């Protein structure tokens, strides 16, 4: 399999799906002439033209709503929101409209829409440009929310999302765009939505994560192996639907669990996973579930403060040691 970046996997998939289905179109700010704020759509305007790759004004509520309405008439828009922070001005369209239209109208119309957006923080982007809101959308029935950690999953899940007839929130990560991995050349492989993957098998402790934190967990697992601790890594891949059986099966095997996510600690993804484990695997636990998540402040700008506010390999190792005590 060729080794390509996460960015390239996304770019390839968008191009292939544009080519495959004339109803697929891309919409977003700076995705065409500018070639994408993070170069995910690089070259696509040149190849597919302005009908298929649509530069929008800065009007997220408006163009997300337009994409939903167009999807209701059979188009398959793939919307880029520059970062997840900006989707808050469009959240009414996502939560009150996209997620409800199929159910609320008795299944009469479908909303085959994908919203791609990077979540989380990197560098010193400050309080308003470093947030993780995927849990807000994972909370909402009617949406599908996926968050791939590898180029392979990025490609397989994006393809699945574009071919899916429901609204899918496709969560990316700025810090993952340059990471590399094996990606098959097969133009029809998909990663199923709603299914987690055991990315590394282990026997002593299960680490549950998604997106960038899965990459962190994989590194930590390798390091812990050198210390004689066998870590199993469950990569959620989808936040809604959530693959509870895979989480529970792993915890029943290892009897210990650490959950790590980049969002804020309270009411975040880690809380949902920890609750699931205590409901369904309480009797199998040898120690309380440990949670690793973001420190609860608006993210400060200063370099040290910023870095210290996000979960890291250090905080994951600390939690693993604690759960092994």
């Amino acid at each position, binding site marked *: 399999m060729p080794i390509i970046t996460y960015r390239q996997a996304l770019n390839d998939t968008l191009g292939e799906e544009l080519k495959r289905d004339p109803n697929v179109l891309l919409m977003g700010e700076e995705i065409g002439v500018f070639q994408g704020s993070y170069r995910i759509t690089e070259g696509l305007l040149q190849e597919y033209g302005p009908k298929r790759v649509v530069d929008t004004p800065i009007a997220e509520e408006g163009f997300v709503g*337009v994409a939903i309405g167009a999807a*209701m008439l059979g188009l398959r828009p793939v919307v880029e929101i520059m970062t997840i922070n900006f989707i808050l001005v469009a959240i*009414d369209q996502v939560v009150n*409209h996209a997620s409800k239209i199929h159910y609320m109208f008795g299944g009469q119309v479908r909303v085959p829409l994908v919203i791609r957006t990077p979540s989380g923080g990197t560098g010193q982007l400050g309080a308003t440009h470093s947030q993780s809101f995927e849990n807000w959308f994972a909370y909402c029935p009617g949406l599908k929310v996926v968050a791939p950690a590898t180029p392979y999953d990025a490609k397989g899940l994006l393809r699945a999302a574009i071919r899916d007839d429901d609204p899918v929130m496709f969560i990316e990560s700025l810090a993952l765009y340059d990471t590399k991995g094996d990606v098959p050349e097969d133009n029809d492989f998909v990663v199923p939505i709603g299914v987690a993957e055991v990315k590394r098998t282990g026997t002593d402790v299960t680490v549950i994560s998604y997106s960038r934190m899965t990459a962190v967990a994989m590194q930590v697992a390798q390091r812990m192996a050198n210390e004689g601790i066998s870590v199993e890594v469950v990569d959620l891949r989808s936040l809604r639907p959530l693959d509870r059986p895979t989480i529970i099966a792993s915890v029943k095997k290892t009897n210990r669990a650490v959950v790590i996510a980049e969002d804020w600690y309270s009411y975040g993804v880690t809380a949902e996973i920890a609750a699931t484990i205590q409901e369904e695997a309480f009797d199998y636990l040898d120690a309380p579930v440990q949670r690793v998540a973001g420190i609860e402040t608006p993210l400060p700008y200063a370099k040290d403060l910023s870095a210290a506010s996000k979960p890291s390999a250090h905080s994951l190792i600390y939690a693993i040691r604690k759960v092994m005590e």
Partner: protein
Amino acid sequence: MVKEADVVRTSLADEDADELRHYYYQMLLLRRFEERTGEMYVKAKIGGYCHLNLGEEATIVGLMAALKPEDYIFTNYRDHGYVLGRGTPPGPIMAELFGKETGVSGGRGGSMHLFDAERHFMGGYAIVGGQVPLAVGAAYALRYQEKPGVVVAQMGDATTNIGAFYESLNLAKLWKCPVLFFIVNNGYGMGTSVAMGSSEPDLWKKGASFRIHGEQIDGTDVLAVRDACRRLRDYAEREADPVILDVVSFRFRGHSVIDSDRYRNPEFVRKGRQDHDPVRNFATLLHEHAIIDDAWLKATADQVEHEIQEAIDFANASSDPNIEDLYQFMYATEVANTPGPEDAIAAVKINRGEV
């Protein structure tokens, strides 16, 4: 209200008498449907919020007379009359208000969320302004797929104060979308008057900075509404250009069934209902021109009563949606790790105290 001098009286000379009688029949059907709906609400047959189209009969029937089958309609939550006016039978509409499986949205939507895909009625929406970008998107899809037709974005007067409206105007113009922005201006957004809520009370002017043409029309005159809509609809389709129609009418009752309307002067309401009743005024007009007589009026009224009673009987006789179908419409594409019929039954039994 529109000043008398502004109103363009349509001559009846070129009109087809059967068509005029049909407009009256439709307006009366809407009127009585809504009055009986109000009764059913009081009898607790209908739950939730319930907003009636009373006073807007000419607005709706005039619009529907101008639209073509290929056109699409998105409305706000005051939607009963639009679905009825588009030709959906009264039975499934009443059944939806009753929350029945046979309702137009399978009992999943209710009064504010009616839908009829077959007739291109693309939904009633209950978040103010939410339907406006959706309508632009539908028009965008028509253009993309090179299909004929226009899309109506119906909204209330107060919706012209929300951000989604302005983003929609900009995108519709920028992307050459054939949208008729159809503002039902009954003077009040709940209890807030147009003057209290809008720095530009002439709502038809609100497209000016987007270079969108706007007009105002008397929404209690079915022929005036029809003619304006026909002209603007054809323009929007031909030129692939959005337009605004500010349709002024009089709201007969409070904002919703449970609103006691304390913020409007009772004398103002009494006079409004007397002077601006589109159904009665149209009957008088047709009478004066000898297009209808008392016997026809009586027969029509009887037929309407019968149809609506049948609708109520249909709704009463219909079944509630099945408990096991609770998750039925969650996703259009099947996906792993989602609950099914057995989970629905188990959850509902617990919630009902049956286990």
